[in-house]
Protein backbone atom coordinates (compact mmCIF):
# COMPACT_ATOMS: atom_id res chain seq x y z
CA UNK A 1 0.00 0.00 0.00
CA UNK A 2 1.64 3.25 -1.05
CA UNK A 3 1.30 6.67 0.47
CA UNK A 4 -1.39 7.74 -2.00
CA UNK A 5 -3.67 4.87 -1.01
CA UNK A 6 -3.17 5.63 2.69
CA UNK A 7 -4.07 9.27 2.08
CA UNK A 8 -7.18 8.14 0.23
CA UNK A 9 -8.28 5.98 3.15
CA UNK A 10 -7.79 8.90 5.58
CA UNK A 11 -9.73 11.23 3.28
CA UNK A 12 -12.57 8.72 3.04
CA UNK A 13 -12.79 7.98 6.75
CA UNK A 14 -12.06 11.37 8.32
CA UNK A 15 -15.64 11.93 9.54
CA UNK A 16 -15.49 8.58 11.30
CA UNK A 17 -12.13 9.50 12.82
CA UNK A 18 -13.62 12.76 14.10
CA UNK A 19 -16.51 10.87 15.68
CA UNK A 20 -14.14 8.43 17.38
CA UNK A 21 -12.00 11.34 18.59
CA UNK A 22 -15.10 13.12 19.91
CA UNK A 23 -16.29 10.00 21.71
CA UNK A 24 -13.07 9.64 23.69
CA UNK A 25 -12.29 13.33 24.33
CA UNK A 26 -15.88 14.03 25.36
CA UNK A 27 -15.83 11.23 27.91
CA UNK A 28 -12.41 12.25 29.23
CA UNK A 29 -13.33 15.93 29.54
CA UNK A 30 -16.63 15.29 31.33
CA UNK A 31 -14.98 12.84 33.77
CA UNK A 32 -12.20 15.28 34.63
CA UNK A 33 -14.69 18.12 34.94
CA UNK A 34 -16.84 16.10 37.37
CA UNK A 35 -13.76 15.35 39.48
CA UNK A 36 -12.86 19.06 39.65
CA UNK A 37 -16.46 19.95 40.54
CA UNK A 38 -16.55 17.44 43.40
CA UNK A 39 -13.28 18.78 44.83
CA UNK A 40 -14.46 22.39 44.65
CA UNK A 41 -17.84 21.52 46.17
CA UNK A 42 -16.18 20.03 49.24
CA UNK A 43 -13.94 23.08 49.51
CA UNK A 44 -16.91 25.50 49.42
CA UNK A 45 -19.31 23.46 51.53
CA UNK A 46 -19.40 26.08 54.30
CA UNK A 47 -21.26 28.62 52.11
CA UNK A 48 -24.98 28.00 52.42
CA UNK A 49 -27.43 28.48 49.59
CA UNK A 50 -31.02 29.69 49.92
CA UNK A 51 -33.62 30.05 47.19
CA UNK A 52 -35.73 32.10 49.62
CA UNK A 53 -35.45 35.89 49.78
CA UNK A 54 -34.98 36.06 53.54
CA UNK A 55 -33.79 33.82 56.36
CA UNK A 56 -36.50 31.95 58.27
CA UNK A 57 -36.96 33.66 61.62
CA UNK A 58 -36.81 30.39 63.52
CA UNK A 59 -33.14 29.92 62.63
CA UNK A 60 -31.89 33.21 64.15
CA UNK A 61 -29.42 34.06 61.39
CA UNK A 62 -28.16 37.59 62.17
CA UNK A 63 -27.05 39.46 59.01
CA UNK A 64 -24.39 42.17 59.42
CA UNK A 65 -25.95 44.32 56.71
CA UNK A 66 -23.13 43.80 54.20
CA UNK A 67 -24.63 42.40 51.01
CA UNK A 68 -23.58 42.10 47.42
CA UNK A 69 -24.76 40.50 44.20
CA UNK A 70 -22.73 37.46 43.13
CA UNK A 71 -23.02 35.47 39.94
CA UNK A 72 -21.35 32.59 38.21
CA UNK A 73 -21.53 31.60 34.57
CA UNK A 74 -20.11 28.86 32.39
CA UNK A 75 -20.53 27.91 28.74
CA UNK A 76 -20.26 24.22 27.90
CA UNK A 77 -20.51 22.24 24.72
CA UNK A 78 -21.00 18.58 23.79
CA UNK A 79 -18.55 16.76 21.55
CA UNK A 80 -19.38 15.92 17.92
CA UNK A 81 -20.13 12.24 18.63
CA UNK A 82 -22.75 12.97 21.28
CA UNK A 83 -24.25 15.82 19.24
CA UNK A 84 -24.75 13.35 16.37
CA UNK A 85 -26.13 10.69 18.71
CA UNK A 86 -28.62 13.20 20.12
CA UNK A 87 -29.69 14.17 16.61
CA UNK A 88 -30.43 10.51 15.82
CA UNK A 89 -32.24 10.04 19.13
CA UNK A 90 -34.74 12.64 18.00
CA UNK A 91 -36.23 10.00 15.72
CA UNK A 92 -37.26 7.66 18.54
CA UNK A 93 -37.39 10.08 21.43
CA UNK A 94 -35.65 9.16 24.65
CA UNK A 95 -33.75 10.74 27.50
CA UNK A 96 -30.63 12.44 26.20
CA UNK A 97 -28.31 11.22 28.92
CA UNK A 98 -25.27 13.16 27.71
CA UNK A 99 -27.25 16.42 27.59
CA UNK A 100 -28.68 15.77 31.04
CA UNK A 101 -25.18 15.33 32.40
CA UNK A 102 -24.01 18.45 30.56
CA UNK A 103 -26.75 20.54 32.18
CA UNK A 104 -25.97 19.10 35.59
CA UNK A 105 -22.26 19.83 35.22
CA UNK A 106 -22.98 23.34 33.94
CA UNK A 107 -25.22 24.21 36.86
CA UNK A 108 -22.86 22.80 39.47
CA UNK A 109 -19.92 24.66 37.91
CA UNK A 110 -21.92 27.91 37.86
CA UNK A 111 -22.78 27.44 41.56
CA UNK A 112 -19.09 26.90 42.35
CA UNK A 113 -18.09 30.10 40.54
CA UNK A 114 -20.81 32.03 42.36
CA UNK A 115 -19.65 30.59 45.68
CA UNK A 116 -16.04 31.60 44.91
CA UNK A 117 -17.19 35.22 44.46
CA UNK A 118 -19.10 35.03 47.74
CA UNK A 119 -16.00 33.61 49.45
CA UNK A 120 -13.86 36.50 48.17
CA UNK A 121 -16.44 38.90 49.59
CA UNK A 122 -16.30 37.07 52.90
CA UNK A 123 -19.92 35.99 52.92
CA UNK A 124 -21.19 32.70 54.31
CA UNK A 125 -24.77 32.74 53.01
CA UNK A 126 -26.23 33.27 49.55
CA UNK A 127 -29.89 34.28 49.43
CA UNK A 128 -32.41 34.09 46.59
CA UNK A 129 -30.38 31.88 44.26
CA UNK A 130 -31.76 31.84 40.71
CA UNK A 131 -30.77 29.78 37.68
CA UNK A 132 -30.94 30.63 34.05
CA UNK A 133 -30.12 28.54 31.01
CA UNK A 134 -29.49 29.97 27.59
CA UNK A 135 -28.18 28.56 24.34
CA UNK A 136 -25.45 30.52 22.59
CA UNK A 137 -25.98 30.53 18.85
CA UNK A 138 -23.12 29.71 16.55
CA UNK A 139 -22.41 31.18 13.14
CA UNK A 140 -24.61 28.74 11.28
CA UNK A 141 -27.54 29.34 13.59
CA UNK A 142 -27.21 26.05 15.45
CA UNK A 143 -26.65 25.97 19.18
CA UNK A 144 -22.88 25.74 19.57
CA UNK A 145 -22.86 25.93 23.33
CA UNK A 146 -25.01 26.24 26.40
CA UNK A 147 -24.56 28.98 28.96
CA UNK A 148 -25.51 28.41 32.55
CA UNK A 149 -25.95 31.42 34.79
CA UNK A 150 -26.67 31.45 38.48
CA UNK A 151 -26.92 34.51 40.70
CA UNK A 152 -27.84 35.43 44.24
CA UNK A 153 -27.24 37.83 47.10
CA UNK A 154 -24.17 37.10 49.22
CA UNK A 155 -24.80 37.94 52.86
CA UNK A 156 -22.41 38.10 55.80
CA UNK A 157 -23.90 36.74 58.99
CA UNK A 158 -22.74 37.25 62.58
CA UNK A 159 -23.16 33.73 63.91
CA UNK A 160 -21.68 32.17 60.80
CA UNK A 161 -24.98 30.47 60.04
CA UNK A 162 -24.31 27.86 62.70
CA UNK A 163 -27.99 27.41 63.32
CA UNK A 164 -28.74 27.06 59.65
CA UNK A 165 -29.40 23.62 58.20
CA UNK A 166 -26.87 22.05 55.84
CA UNK A 167 -27.51 22.98 52.24
CA UNK A 168 -27.86 20.25 49.63
Amino acid sequence: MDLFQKAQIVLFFWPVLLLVLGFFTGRLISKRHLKRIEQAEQELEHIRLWTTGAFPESLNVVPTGENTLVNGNVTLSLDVFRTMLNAFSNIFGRNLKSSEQLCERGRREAIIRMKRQAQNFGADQILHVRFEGYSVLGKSGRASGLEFLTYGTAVKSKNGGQNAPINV
Partner: protein
Amino acid sequence: MDIILTNTSTLPGREVIKHIGLVQGNTVRTKHLGRDIAAGFKNLVGGELRGYTELLGEAREECTARMVEEAKTSGANAIINIRYGTSSVANGASELFVYGTAVVVS
Protein backbone atom coordinates in the same frame (compact mmCIF):
# COMPACT_ATOMS: atom_id res chain seq x y z
CA MET B 1 -20.13 55.79 47.70
CA ASP B 2 -20.69 52.29 46.42
CA ILE B 3 -24.12 51.08 45.48
CA ILE B 4 -25.35 47.90 47.16
CA LEU B 5 -26.71 45.33 44.72
CA THR B 6 -28.98 42.49 45.79
CA ASN B 7 -31.53 40.26 44.12
CA THR B 8 -33.63 39.83 47.26
CA SER B 9 -36.77 41.91 47.73
CA THR B 10 -35.50 43.21 51.10
CA LEU B 11 -32.00 43.95 52.30
CA PRO B 12 -30.95 41.65 55.15
CA GLY B 13 -29.91 43.83 58.10
CA ARG B 14 -31.04 47.14 56.53
CA GLU B 15 -34.22 49.17 56.09
CA VAL B 16 -35.51 50.68 52.86
CA ILE B 17 -36.38 54.37 53.46
CA LYS B 18 -37.16 55.72 49.99
CA HIS B 19 -38.25 54.30 46.68
CA ILE B 20 -36.63 55.76 43.54
CA GLY B 21 -37.88 53.55 40.71
CA LEU B 22 -36.94 51.01 38.10
CA VAL B 23 -33.42 51.11 36.67
CA GLN B 24 -32.05 49.00 33.86
CA GLY B 25 -29.04 48.44 31.67
CA ASN B 26 -28.53 46.48 28.49
CA THR B 27 -25.81 45.55 26.04
CA VAL B 28 -25.72 43.69 22.73
CA ARG B 29 -22.56 41.77 22.01
CA THR B 30 -21.23 39.60 19.25
CA LYS B 31 -18.30 37.25 19.28
CA HIS B 32 -15.35 37.86 16.97
CA LEU B 33 -14.26 35.35 14.39
CA GLY B 34 -11.33 33.92 16.34
CA ARG B 35 -13.57 32.97 19.22
CA ASP B 36 -16.06 31.39 16.84
CA ILE B 37 -13.35 29.24 15.29
CA ALA B 38 -12.09 28.18 18.71
CA ALA B 39 -15.67 27.37 19.74
CA GLY B 40 -16.14 25.35 16.55
CA PHE B 41 -13.13 23.26 17.45
CA LYS B 42 -14.42 22.81 21.00
CA ASN B 43 -17.70 21.60 19.50
CA LEU B 44 -15.80 18.62 18.12
CA VAL B 45 -14.06 17.53 21.30
CA GLY B 46 -16.48 18.92 23.90
CA GLY B 47 -15.67 20.95 26.98
CA GLU B 48 -15.92 24.51 28.20
CA LEU B 49 -16.08 27.36 25.66
CA ARG B 50 -13.90 29.78 27.65
CA GLY B 51 -14.18 32.58 25.10
CA TYR B 52 -17.96 32.64 25.35
CA THR B 53 -17.91 32.36 29.14
CA GLU B 54 -15.63 35.40 29.38
CA LEU B 55 -17.56 37.34 26.75
CA LEU B 56 -20.93 36.84 28.43
CA GLY B 57 -19.42 37.56 31.83
CA GLU B 58 -17.90 40.83 30.62
CA ALA B 59 -21.10 41.84 28.85
CA ARG B 60 -23.07 41.20 32.02
CA GLU B 61 -20.64 43.33 34.04
CA GLU B 62 -21.02 46.12 31.51
CA CYS B 63 -24.81 46.19 31.59
CA THR B 64 -24.71 46.06 35.39
CA ALA B 65 -22.37 49.07 35.32
CA ARG B 66 -24.86 50.95 33.11
CA MET B 67 -27.66 50.16 35.52
CA VAL B 68 -25.55 51.32 38.48
CA GLU B 69 -24.78 54.57 36.62
CA GLU B 70 -28.48 55.20 36.13
CA ALA B 71 -29.17 54.53 39.81
CA LYS B 72 -26.34 56.84 40.93
CA THR B 73 -27.62 59.78 38.88
CA SER B 74 -31.06 59.37 40.44
CA GLY B 75 -29.55 59.44 43.93
CA ALA B 76 -30.10 55.85 45.05
CA ASN B 77 -27.66 53.96 47.26
CA ALA B 78 -28.94 50.44 46.62
CA ILE B 79 -30.62 48.38 43.92
CA ILE B 80 -32.82 45.53 45.11
CA ASN B 81 -34.58 42.66 43.35
CA ILE B 82 -32.17 42.54 40.41
CA ARG B 83 -33.05 40.20 37.52
CA TYR B 84 -30.91 39.11 34.58
CA GLY B 85 -32.25 38.34 31.15
CA THR B 86 -30.70 37.09 27.92
CA SER B 87 -32.09 37.02 24.42
CA SER B 88 -30.55 36.38 21.03
CA VAL B 89 -30.96 39.29 18.64
CA ALA B 90 -29.43 37.73 15.52
CA ASN B 91 -27.20 34.77 14.74
CA GLY B 92 -24.18 35.04 16.95
CA ALA B 93 -25.29 38.23 18.71
CA SER B 94 -26.92 38.24 22.10
CA GLU B 95 -28.55 40.94 24.18
CA LEU B 96 -27.98 40.91 27.91
CA PHE B 97 -30.15 43.04 30.10
CA VAL B 98 -30.41 43.60 33.81
CA TYR B 99 -33.06 45.47 35.77
CA GLY B 100 -33.89 46.23 39.36
CA THR B 101 -35.51 48.64 41.79
CA ALA B 102 -33.41 51.60 42.92
CA VAL B 103 -33.98 52.55 46.56
CA VAL B 104 -32.41 54.49 49.40
CA VAL B 105 -31.52 52.35 52.41
CA SER B 106 -30.36 53.22 55.90
